[in-house]
């Protein structure tokens, strides 16, 4: 079992200029670990991170798109695994932080917390490369090749939360955050207002 923050730091070291979609507790940690104008914080419609990431991957085919999903979130949108595998965006890397609970909603266990295999779902859906990490040293060794592999790729990260991040939702829901993200995307796609 790894600390989620340790995993996120490893991903952050390798993100380059990738657009990153992150959810809930992971997102709050992520914006502290890897502040970047191309962080898209997916909250408010739980489960939609993977679909948002697919939209970005289609819209920005030359840009790496990383989604840092939650296990409870992905359970709400398992069909997106099939859709993503079918579209098969080469630029999409999908992580799920598997901690077995709805951390932002009282730490209740997810259904099947000790049985469900998210990598099994992704493999069966047809992702090009699927793996799991539960040891930080292995993650450090294998993550560079994993993140360079042609997508869609999927990795289940077996994690435990560290100290609970402050859940300041105004950071995510705020109009300023949305404007900043849009301005960054506009610069990439060459859109002039």
């Amino acid at each position: 079992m790894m600390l989620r923050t340790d995993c996120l730091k490893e991903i952050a070291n390798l993100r380059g200029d990738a657009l990153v979609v992150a959810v809930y507790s992971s997102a709050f940690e992520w914006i502290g670990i890897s502040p970047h104008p191309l962080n898209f914080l997916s909250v408010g419609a739980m489960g939609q991170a993977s679909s948002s990431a697919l939209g970005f991957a289609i819209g920005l085919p030359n840009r790496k798109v990383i989604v840092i999903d939650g296990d409870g979130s992905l359970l709400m949108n398992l069909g997106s695994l099939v859709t993503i595998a079918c579209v098969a965006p080469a630029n999409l890397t999908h992580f799920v932080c598997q901690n077995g609970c709805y951390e932002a909603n009282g730490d209740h266990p997810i259904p099947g917390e000790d049985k469900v295999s998210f990598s099994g779902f992704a493999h069966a859906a047809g992702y090009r490369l699927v793996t799991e990490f539960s040891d930080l040293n292995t993650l450090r060794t294998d993550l560079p090749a994993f993140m360079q592999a042609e997508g869609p790729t999927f990795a289940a990260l077996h994690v435990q939360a560290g100290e609970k991040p402050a859940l300041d939702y105004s950071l995510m829901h705020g109009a300023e955050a949305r404007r900043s993200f849009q301005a960054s995307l506009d610069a990439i796609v060459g859109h002039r207002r």
Partner: protein
Amino acid sequence: MTQGSEGTGMLDGRAIIDAMRSAGLDTIVSLPDITTSAGLLWPISKESDIRLVRVCKEDEGVSICAALALCRKRSALLMQQTGLFDSLNAVRGIAVEYKLPVCMFVGLLGKEPGVAPPQNKRYSVRVVQPVLDAMEVPNFCIEDNRDIAKIGPAVDRAYAESQPVVVLFGRRVQP
């Protein structure tokens, strides 16, 4: 109340696809709906200049279209009203609250042709527009070829004002 009773009494899929294309909608995200299957979805699936993304559940499409809008690309979600109902939290959280131009084209399964949706006998048809109105989602119903001209301006308005729009198909679309 009747709607479209003075028109041709039909919806031509080819004209709708042309209207979508003219409005810049080059990606269609969809789940099949029998109201639009033969007239829209099958023809769209054969169009080389329109990307079709088949999703497993309609709320995926809300997010995909919203992300494409952030990338300044125009797209639309084609579905049945049952899928719209299933997607309402995504519509609420992503399209309405985050003010994103998600364009939704919705077949009204079970609607009586020529009868405005709120006057329909079927609950599943009758409540669609009141629900959308309550959610402050702009919407209108087309059921005659004369109405197809409304599609382009509605899509343009959605993108100009960064807000969702729902176009309801009030009768089966013909190929």
